[in-house]
Protein backbone atom coordinates (compact mmCIF):
# COMPACT_ATOMS: atom_id res chain seq x y z
CA UNK A 1 0.00 0.00 0.00
CA UNK A 2 1.39 3.41 -0.93
CA UNK A 3 0.93 6.56 1.19
CA UNK A 4 0.85 10.00 -0.39
CA UNK A 5 2.42 13.13 1.18
CA UNK A 6 3.79 11.99 4.50
CA UNK A 7 4.34 15.62 5.53
CA UNK A 8 0.61 16.19 6.07
CA UNK A 9 -0.70 16.23 9.66
CA UNK A 10 -1.89 12.85 10.90
CA UNK A 11 -5.38 14.21 11.66
CA UNK A 12 -6.10 14.76 7.92
CA UNK A 13 -8.76 12.25 6.91
CA UNK A 14 -7.61 9.65 4.48
CA UNK A 15 -9.35 7.69 1.78
CA UNK A 16 -8.50 4.44 0.03
CA UNK A 17 -8.64 4.12 -3.72
CA UNK A 18 -7.63 1.51 -6.28
CA UNK A 19 -5.06 2.80 -8.73
CA UNK A 20 -4.46 0.95 -12.00
CA UNK A 21 -1.48 1.95 -14.07
CA UNK A 22 -1.67 0.40 -17.54
CA UNK A 23 1.69 1.88 -18.43
CA UNK A 24 4.26 -0.92 -18.23
CA UNK A 25 3.04 -3.74 -16.02
CA UNK A 26 -0.62 -2.84 -15.77
CA UNK A 27 -0.64 -3.67 -12.09
CA UNK A 28 -3.25 -2.42 -9.64
CA UNK A 29 -2.45 -1.03 -6.21
CA UNK A 30 -4.44 0.33 -3.27
CA UNK A 31 -3.46 3.84 -2.24
CA UNK A 32 -4.17 5.86 0.88
CA UNK A 33 -4.77 9.48 -0.12
CA UNK A 34 -5.77 12.60 1.79
CA UNK A 35 -9.42 13.49 1.40
CA UNK A 36 -9.96 16.01 -1.37
CA UNK A 37 -7.12 14.73 -3.58
CA UNK A 38 -7.92 15.52 -7.17
CA UNK A 39 -7.26 13.43 -10.25
CA UNK A 40 -4.55 15.85 -11.34
CA UNK A 41 -2.79 15.67 -7.99
CA UNK A 42 -2.84 11.90 -8.09
CA UNK A 43 -1.47 11.92 -11.64
CA UNK A 44 1.37 14.25 -10.72
CA UNK A 45 2.31 12.13 -7.72
CA UNK A 46 2.19 8.77 -9.51
CA UNK A 47 3.21 9.57 -13.05
CA UNK A 48 6.04 12.03 -12.43
CA UNK A 49 6.97 14.15 -15.43
CA UNK A 50 4.45 12.51 -17.78
CA UNK A 51 1.78 14.65 -19.41
CA UNK A 52 -1.85 14.00 -18.59
CA UNK A 53 -2.83 14.38 -22.24
CA UNK A 54 -0.71 11.32 -23.02
CA UNK A 55 -3.04 9.16 -20.92
CA UNK A 56 -6.65 8.04 -20.92
CA UNK A 57 -7.74 8.64 -17.34
CA UNK A 58 -10.91 6.99 -16.04
CA UNK A 59 -12.47 7.12 -12.61
CA UNK A 60 -14.88 4.27 -11.93
CA UNK A 61 -14.69 3.41 -15.63
CA UNK A 62 -15.86 6.89 -16.68
CA UNK A 63 -14.00 9.83 -18.21
CA UNK A 64 -13.45 12.54 -15.65
CA UNK A 65 -12.45 16.16 -15.29
CA UNK A 66 -8.89 16.94 -14.24
CA UNK A 67 -9.98 18.82 -11.11
CA UNK A 68 -12.49 16.18 -10.02
CA UNK A 69 -12.05 15.12 -6.41
CA UNK A 70 -11.57 11.48 -5.61
CA UNK A 71 -13.62 9.64 -3.00
CA UNK A 72 -13.28 6.59 -0.83
CA UNK A 73 -13.38 3.39 -2.87
CA UNK A 74 -12.84 5.07 -6.24
CA UNK A 75 -11.12 3.13 -8.97
CA UNK A 76 -8.71 5.19 -11.06
CA UNK A 77 -7.09 3.81 -14.21
CA UNK A 78 -4.49 5.45 -16.41
CA UNK A 79 -3.82 4.03 -19.87
CA UNK A 80 -1.10 5.50 -22.07
CA UNK A 81 -2.22 6.81 -25.42
CA UNK A 82 0.93 5.40 -27.04
CA UNK A 83 1.48 1.66 -26.63
CA UNK A 84 3.83 0.11 -29.15
CA UNK A 85 2.98 -3.12 -30.84
CA UNK A 86 5.54 -5.19 -32.69
CA UNK A 87 6.04 -7.81 -35.35
CA UNK A 88 8.19 -10.19 -33.32
CA UNK A 89 6.67 -13.46 -34.40
CA UNK A 90 8.25 -15.14 -37.40
CA UNK A 91 5.94 -16.82 -39.88
CA UNK A 92 6.38 -20.55 -39.52
CA UNK A 93 7.21 -22.30 -42.78
Amino acid at each position, binding site marked *: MCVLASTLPSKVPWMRILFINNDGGGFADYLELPDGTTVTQLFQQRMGQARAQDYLIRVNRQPTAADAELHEGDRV*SMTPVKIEG*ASGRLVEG
Partner: protein
Amino acid sequence: MERERKSERETFSRRRWRCAVRIARALTIAFHERQQVLLPERWFQQARDLAARHELVRSRGWAAAADQLRWQLLLRVQWLQTELKLLQQTLQMLQTPMPAPSAADVYRELVALEQEFERVDIAPQSTRLTVITERIILRGIDFGPFELVWNWSAISGEDELRARALEPCRPNDREDVTHPHVQDHQLCEGEASLPLEQALRSGRLCDYFAILQQTLKTYNPSSPYVHLEDWFSRRCSSCNDTMDECDESDCHACGEILCCDCIACCAECHASTCRSCLDACPECHRDICASCQPEGGFCRGVCCDSCQTAKDQNETDTADDEEKDSGTDAAGAAVQSVCLGEVGVPA
Protein backbone atom coordinates in the same frame (compact mmCIF):
# COMPACT_ATOMS: atom_id res chain seq x y z
CA MET B 1 -43.92 2.63 -25.65
CA GLU B 2 -42.28 3.36 -22.30
CA ARG B 3 -43.13 -0.16 -21.18
CA GLU B 4 -41.55 -1.52 -24.36
CA ARG B 5 -38.38 0.49 -23.79
CA LYS B 6 -38.21 -0.64 -20.17
CA SER B 7 -38.79 -4.22 -21.22
CA GLU B 8 -36.07 -3.90 -23.83
CA ARG B 9 -33.54 -2.55 -21.32
CA GLU B 10 -34.35 -5.29 -18.82
CA THR B 11 -34.03 -7.99 -21.47
CA PHE B 12 -30.76 -6.58 -22.55
CA SER B 13 -29.53 -6.29 -18.95
CA ARG B 14 -30.39 -9.91 -18.22
CA ARG B 15 -28.54 -10.92 -21.31
CA ARG B 16 -25.59 -8.82 -20.28
CA TRP B 17 -25.69 -10.37 -16.84
CA ARG B 18 -25.69 -13.89 -18.24
CA CYS B 19 -22.65 -13.04 -20.34
CA ALA B 20 -20.96 -11.45 -17.35
CA VAL B 21 -21.40 -14.65 -15.38
CA ARG B 22 -19.93 -16.75 -18.17
CA ILE B 23 -17.03 -14.38 -18.75
CA ALA B 24 -16.21 -14.17 -15.05
CA ARG B 25 -16.19 -17.96 -14.86
CA ALA B 26 -13.91 -18.23 -17.91
CA LEU B 27 -11.48 -15.69 -16.45
CA THR B 28 -11.45 -17.45 -13.10
CA ILE B 29 -10.62 -20.77 -14.72
CA ALA B 30 -7.98 -19.27 -17.01
CA PHE B 31 -6.15 -17.15 -14.48
CA HIS B 32 -7.03 -18.16 -10.97
CA GLU B 33 -7.70 -21.88 -10.96
CA ARG B 34 -5.40 -23.05 -13.66
CA GLN B 35 -2.08 -21.45 -12.73
CA GLN B 36 0.07 -23.68 -14.86
CA VAL B 37 3.42 -22.15 -15.63
CA LEU B 38 4.29 -22.69 -19.26
CA LEU B 39 7.88 -22.39 -20.36
CA PRO B 40 8.42 -21.17 -23.96
CA GLU B 41 9.67 -24.57 -25.06
CA ARG B 42 8.44 -24.27 -28.60
CA TRP B 43 10.51 -21.13 -29.21
CA PHE B 44 13.55 -22.71 -27.58
CA GLN B 45 13.22 -25.80 -29.76
CA GLN B 46 13.01 -23.66 -32.87
CA ALA B 47 16.10 -21.72 -31.82
CA ARG B 48 17.93 -24.99 -31.21
CA ASP B 49 16.96 -26.30 -34.68
CA LEU B 50 18.11 -23.07 -36.31
CA ALA B 51 21.43 -23.23 -34.46
CA ALA B 52 21.96 -26.81 -35.69
CA ARG B 53 21.19 -25.85 -39.28
CA HIS B 54 23.47 -22.85 -38.99
CA GLU B 55 26.33 -25.07 -37.83
CA LEU B 56 25.72 -27.46 -40.71
CA VAL B 57 25.79 -24.82 -43.45
CA ARG B 58 28.70 -23.02 -41.82
CA SER B 59 30.77 -26.20 -41.80
CA ARG B 60 30.06 -26.63 -45.51
CA GLY B 61 31.22 -23.11 -46.26
CA TRP B 62 27.85 -21.82 -47.42
CA ALA B 63 28.34 -18.27 -46.24
CA ALA B 64 25.14 -16.73 -47.61
CA ALA B 65 22.97 -19.46 -46.12
CA ALA B 66 24.83 -19.14 -42.83
CA ASP B 67 24.15 -15.37 -42.76
CA GLN B 68 20.46 -15.92 -43.38
CA LEU B 69 20.19 -18.55 -40.66
CA ARG B 70 22.13 -16.38 -38.22
CA TRP B 71 19.64 -13.55 -38.79
CA GLN B 72 16.69 -15.89 -38.23
CA LEU B 73 18.32 -17.23 -35.09
CA LEU B 74 18.83 -13.71 -33.80
CA LEU B 75 15.13 -12.90 -34.22
CA ARG B 76 14.17 -16.14 -32.56
CA VAL B 77 16.45 -15.52 -29.59
CA GLN B 78 15.04 -11.99 -29.22
CA TRP B 79 11.52 -13.37 -29.17
CA LEU B 80 12.55 -16.05 -26.65
CA GLN B 81 13.99 -13.30 -24.48
CA THR B 82 10.68 -11.42 -24.59
CA GLU B 83 8.73 -14.56 -23.68
CA LEU B 84 11.03 -15.31 -20.75
CA LYS B 85 10.69 -11.75 -19.49
CA LEU B 86 6.90 -12.02 -19.63
CA LEU B 87 7.09 -15.31 -17.77
CA GLN B 88 9.28 -13.72 -15.12
CA GLN B 89 6.78 -10.91 -14.60
CA THR B 90 3.91 -13.39 -14.49
CA LEU B 91 5.69 -15.48 -11.84
CA GLN B 92 6.36 -12.35 -9.78
CA MET B 93 2.73 -11.40 -10.07
CA LEU B 94 1.61 -14.85 -8.96
CA GLN B 95 3.51 -14.25 -5.74
CA THR B 96 0.77 -11.77 -4.77
CA PRO B 97 -2.40 -13.22 -6.27
CA MET B 98 -5.34 -10.94 -6.98
CA PRO B 99 -8.93 -11.95 -6.31
CA ALA B 100 -10.81 -13.37 -9.28
CA PRO B 101 -13.25 -10.94 -10.90
CA SER B 102 -16.87 -11.34 -9.87
CA ALA B 103 -19.79 -11.44 -12.26
CA ALA B 104 -20.82 -8.04 -10.92
CA ASP B 105 -17.40 -6.61 -11.77
CA VAL B 106 -17.60 -7.98 -15.29
CA TYR B 107 -21.17 -6.70 -15.67
CA ARG B 108 -20.01 -3.17 -14.82
CA GLU B 109 -17.16 -3.56 -17.29
CA LEU B 110 -19.60 -4.52 -20.04
CA VAL B 111 -21.71 -1.43 -19.29
CA ALA B 112 -18.61 0.78 -19.35
CA LEU B 113 -17.45 -0.86 -22.58
CA GLU B 114 -20.67 0.15 -24.31
CA GLN B 115 -20.13 3.71 -23.18
CA GLU B 116 -16.47 3.81 -24.22
CA PHE B 117 -16.89 2.27 -27.69
CA GLU B 118 -19.46 3.04 -30.32
CA ARG B 119 -20.32 -0.57 -31.04
CA VAL B 120 -20.07 -3.57 -28.77
CA ASP B 121 -21.60 -6.96 -29.52
CA ILE B 122 -21.82 -9.83 -27.08
CA ALA B 123 -22.46 -13.29 -28.49
CA PRO B 124 -22.83 -15.71 -25.59
CA GLN B 125 -23.44 -18.72 -27.84
CA SER B 126 -20.13 -18.30 -29.62
CA THR B 127 -18.42 -16.95 -26.45
CA ARG B 128 -17.30 -13.86 -28.29
CA LEU B 129 -17.20 -10.20 -27.37
CA THR B 130 -16.75 -7.85 -30.33
CA VAL B 131 -15.74 -4.22 -30.19
CA ILE B 132 -15.40 -1.85 -33.14
CA THR B 133 -12.61 0.69 -32.73
CA GLU B 134 -12.36 4.25 -34.00
CA ARG B 135 -10.78 4.80 -37.39
CA ILE B 136 -7.07 4.08 -37.07
CA ILE B 137 -4.97 6.71 -38.79
CA LEU B 138 -1.19 6.53 -38.67
CA ARG B 139 0.95 9.25 -40.29
CA GLY B 140 -1.84 10.18 -42.65
CA ILE B 141 -2.66 6.61 -43.72
CA ASP B 142 -6.23 5.69 -42.87
CA PHE B 143 -6.52 2.00 -41.92
CA GLY B 144 -10.20 2.35 -41.09
CA PRO B 145 -11.90 0.89 -38.03
CA PHE B 146 -10.93 -2.53 -36.71
CA GLU B 147 -13.19 -5.24 -35.37
CA LEU B 148 -11.66 -6.72 -32.21
CA VAL B 149 -13.15 -10.11 -31.43
CA TRP B 150 -12.27 -11.57 -28.05
CA ASN B 151 -13.11 -15.23 -27.54
CA TRP B 152 -13.42 -15.88 -23.81
CA SER B 153 -13.39 -19.65 -24.26
CA ALA B 154 -9.93 -19.50 -25.88
CA ILE B 155 -8.02 -17.41 -23.33
CA SER B 156 -4.25 -17.71 -23.82
CA GLY B 157 -4.84 -19.66 -27.02
CA GLU B 158 -4.05 -18.58 -30.57
CA ASP B 159 -7.70 -17.96 -31.32
CA GLU B 160 -8.25 -15.68 -28.33
CA LEU B 161 -8.15 -12.37 -30.15
CA ARG B 162 -8.65 -11.39 -33.78
CA ALA B 163 -8.17 -7.89 -35.16
CA ARG B 164 -9.96 -7.63 -38.48
CA ALA B 165 -9.75 -4.49 -40.61
CA LEU B 166 -13.24 -3.46 -41.72
CA GLU B 167 -11.91 -1.23 -44.52
CA PRO B 168 -8.59 -2.91 -45.26
CA CYS B 169 -5.73 -0.77 -46.48
CA ARG B 170 -3.01 -3.24 -47.35
CA PRO B 171 0.53 -2.62 -48.57
CA ASN B 172 1.04 -3.15 -52.29
CA ASP B 173 2.57 -6.59 -52.00
CA ARG B 174 1.25 -7.99 -48.69
CA GLU B 175 -2.27 -9.38 -48.67
CA ASP B 176 -1.81 -10.66 -45.11
CA VAL B 177 -0.97 -7.31 -43.51
CA THR B 178 -3.69 -4.73 -42.70
CA HIS B 179 -1.80 -2.61 -40.18
CA PRO B 180 1.91 -2.23 -39.38
CA HIS B 181 1.41 -4.56 -36.39
CA VAL B 182 -1.37 -6.82 -37.66
CA GLN B 183 -0.74 -9.89 -39.81
CA ASP B 184 -3.39 -12.47 -40.65
CA HIS B 185 -5.77 -10.68 -38.26
CA GLN B 186 -3.35 -11.22 -35.36
CA LEU B 187 -2.13 -8.15 -33.51
CA CYS B 188 1.43 -8.41 -32.30
CA GLU B 189 0.95 -6.86 -28.87
CA GLY B 190 4.55 -5.87 -28.14
CA GLU B 191 4.70 -3.80 -24.96
CA ALA B 192 0.95 -4.18 -24.52
CA SER B 193 1.26 -7.90 -23.68
CA LEU B 194 1.61 -7.59 -19.94
CA PRO B 195 -0.98 -4.86 -19.30
CA LEU B 196 -3.41 -6.81 -21.48
CA GLU B 197 -2.91 -9.95 -19.42
CA GLN B 198 -3.23 -7.95 -16.21
CA ALA B 199 -6.45 -6.37 -17.41
CA LEU B 200 -7.99 -9.74 -18.24
CA ARG B 201 -6.79 -11.31 -15.03
CA SER B 202 -8.65 -8.59 -13.11
CA GLY B 203 -11.68 -8.75 -15.40
CA ARG B 204 -11.08 -5.17 -16.57
CA LEU B 205 -12.56 -5.62 -20.01
CA CYS B 206 -12.84 -1.90 -20.66
CA ASP B 207 -9.11 -1.45 -20.01
CA TYR B 208 -8.38 -4.51 -22.16
CA PHE B 209 -10.06 -3.09 -25.24
CA ALA B 210 -8.80 0.43 -24.54
CA ILE B 211 -5.23 -0.91 -24.49
CA LEU B 212 -5.84 -2.79 -27.74
CA GLN B 213 -7.21 0.31 -29.43
CA GLN B 214 -4.29 2.44 -28.25
CA THR B 215 -1.86 -0.20 -29.53
CA LEU B 216 -3.49 -0.03 -32.94
CA LYS B 217 -3.28 3.76 -32.82
CA THR B 218 0.46 3.67 -32.13
CA TYR B 219 3.12 3.06 -34.76
CA ASN B 220 6.34 1.39 -33.65
CA PRO B 221 8.85 2.12 -36.43
CA SER B 222 11.44 -0.29 -35.03
CA SER B 223 9.31 -3.40 -35.43
CA PRO B 224 6.46 -3.33 -37.97
CA TYR B 225 5.50 -6.04 -40.44
CA VAL B 226 5.72 -3.35 -43.12
CA HIS B 227 7.12 0.13 -42.56
CA LEU B 228 4.70 2.98 -43.17
CA GLU B 229 7.20 4.59 -45.55
CA ASP B 230 6.97 1.47 -47.73
CA TRP B 231 3.21 0.98 -47.43
CA PHE B 232 2.41 2.11 -50.95
CA SER B 233 5.81 1.31 -52.44
CA ARG B 234 6.21 -1.46 -54.90
CA ARG B 235 9.02 -3.98 -55.03
CA CYS B 236 11.34 -4.46 -57.95
CA SER B 237 10.58 -7.74 -59.73
CA SER B 238 14.28 -8.38 -60.10
CA CYS B 239 16.05 -7.40 -56.85
CA ASN B 240 12.92 -7.23 -54.61
CA ASP B 241 13.97 -3.84 -53.20
CA THR B 242 11.21 -1.29 -52.48
CA MET B 243 11.18 1.62 -54.85
CA ASP B 244 9.57 5.06 -55.04
CA GLU B 245 7.08 5.70 -57.78
CA CYS B 246 9.53 7.95 -59.61
CA ASP B 247 12.09 5.09 -59.73
CA GLU B 248 9.71 2.61 -61.33
CA SER B 249 10.07 1.44 -64.90
CA ASP B 250 8.18 -1.27 -66.69
CA CYS B 251 9.62 -3.70 -69.18
CA HIS B 252 7.98 -3.12 -72.55
CA ALA B 253 8.31 -6.82 -73.37
CA CYS B 254 6.93 -8.61 -70.29
CA GLY B 255 5.36 -5.76 -68.32
CA GLU B 256 7.28 -6.41 -65.06
CA ILE B 257 8.00 -3.40 -62.85
CA LEU B 258 11.67 -2.81 -62.04
CA CYS B 259 13.82 -0.27 -60.24
CA CYS B 260 16.22 2.06 -62.01
CA ASP B 261 19.16 -0.20 -61.11
CA CYS B 262 17.66 -3.31 -62.67
CA ILE B 263 16.01 -1.88 -65.80
CA ALA B 264 18.04 -2.00 -69.00
CA CYS B 265 17.26 -0.98 -72.56
CA CYS B 266 17.40 -2.48 -75.99
CA ALA B 267 20.41 -1.31 -77.94
CA GLU B 268 18.33 -1.21 -81.13
CA CYS B 269 15.02 0.43 -80.22
CA HIS B 270 16.10 1.85 -76.81
CA ALA B 271 12.90 0.66 -75.13
CA SER B 272 13.05 -0.07 -71.35
CA THR B 273 13.51 -3.79 -71.00
CA CYS B 274 14.37 -6.16 -68.17
CA ARG B 275 17.52 -8.23 -68.55
CA SER B 276 15.49 -11.43 -68.87
CA CYS B 277 13.93 -10.11 -72.05
CA LEU B 278 17.28 -9.14 -73.63
CA ASP B 279 19.70 -11.33 -75.49
CA ALA B 280 23.20 -10.47 -76.62
CA CYS B 281 24.07 -10.42 -80.29
CA PRO B 282 26.89 -12.95 -80.87
CA GLU B 283 28.67 -10.46 -83.11
CA CYS B 284 28.53 -7.09 -81.39
CA HIS B 285 27.43 -8.40 -77.96
CA ARG B 286 24.86 -5.61 -77.56
CA ASP B 287 21.66 -6.44 -75.68
CA ILE B 288 18.71 -6.67 -78.04
CA CYS B 289 15.05 -7.17 -77.14
CA ALA B 290 12.92 -9.91 -78.66
CA SER B 291 11.12 -7.47 -80.95
CA CYS B 292 14.39 -6.35 -82.53
CA GLN B 293 15.97 -9.80 -82.73
CA PRO B 294 15.80 -11.79 -85.96
CA GLU B 295 13.09 -14.38 -86.20
CA GLY B 296 14.17 -17.36 -84.15
CA GLY B 297 16.53 -15.30 -82.02
CA PHE B 298 20.30 -15.43 -81.93
CA CYS B 299 20.71 -19.11 -82.50
CA ARG B 300 23.12 -20.74 -84.95
CA GLY B 301 25.22 -17.62 -85.07
CA VAL B 302 22.51 -15.38 -86.50
CA CYS B 303 23.32 -11.79 -85.59
CA CYS B 304 21.35 -8.61 -85.10
CA ASP B 305 20.05 -6.45 -87.92
CA SER B 306 22.78 -3.86 -87.51
CA CYS B 307 25.51 -6.48 -87.66
CA GLN B 308 23.82 -8.21 -90.58
CA THR B 309 23.51 -4.95 -92.45
CA ALA B 310 27.16 -4.20 -91.78
CA LYS B 311 28.10 -7.68 -92.95
CA ASP B 312 26.07 -7.36 -96.11
CA GLN B 313 27.64 -4.01 -96.85
CA ASN B 314 31.06 -5.43 -96.17
CA GLU B 315 30.45 -8.31 -98.54
CA THR B 316 29.24 -6.03 -101.23
CA ASP B 317 32.28 -3.82 -100.86
CA THR B 318 34.59 -6.83 -100.87
CA ALA B 319 32.96 -8.27 -103.95
CA ASP B 320 33.27 -5.00 -105.79
CA ASP B 321 36.92 -4.68 -104.84
CA GLU B 322 37.75 -8.19 -105.90
CA GLU B 323 35.96 -7.81 -109.18
CA LYS B 324 37.90 -4.68 -109.85
CA ASP B 325 41.23 -6.26 -108.90
CA SER B 326 41.00 -9.67 -110.51
CA GLY B 327 39.32 -8.71 -113.83
CA THR B 328 38.27 -12.33 -114.43
CA ASP B 329 35.67 -13.07 -117.19
CA ALA B 330 32.39 -14.59 -116.55
CA ALA B 331 33.37 -18.08 -117.66
CA GLY B 332 36.35 -18.26 -115.46
CA ALA B 333 34.83 -16.31 -112.67
CA ALA B 334 36.15 -17.60 -109.49
CA VAL B 335 33.62 -18.88 -107.07
CA GLN B 336 33.98 -16.80 -104.06
CA SER B 337 32.07 -17.42 -100.98
CA VAL B 338 31.28 -14.01 -99.60
CA CYS B 339 29.65 -15.40 -96.64
CA LEU B 340 28.38 -18.69 -95.42
CA GLY B 341 25.86 -20.20 -97.85
CA GLU B 342 26.27 -17.52 -100.47
CA VAL B 343 28.37 -17.41 -103.64
CA GLY B 344 28.94 -14.29 -105.65
CA VAL B 345 28.38 -14.64 -109.36
CA PRO B 346 28.99 -12.03 -112.01
CA ALA B 347 25.93 -10.25 -113.33
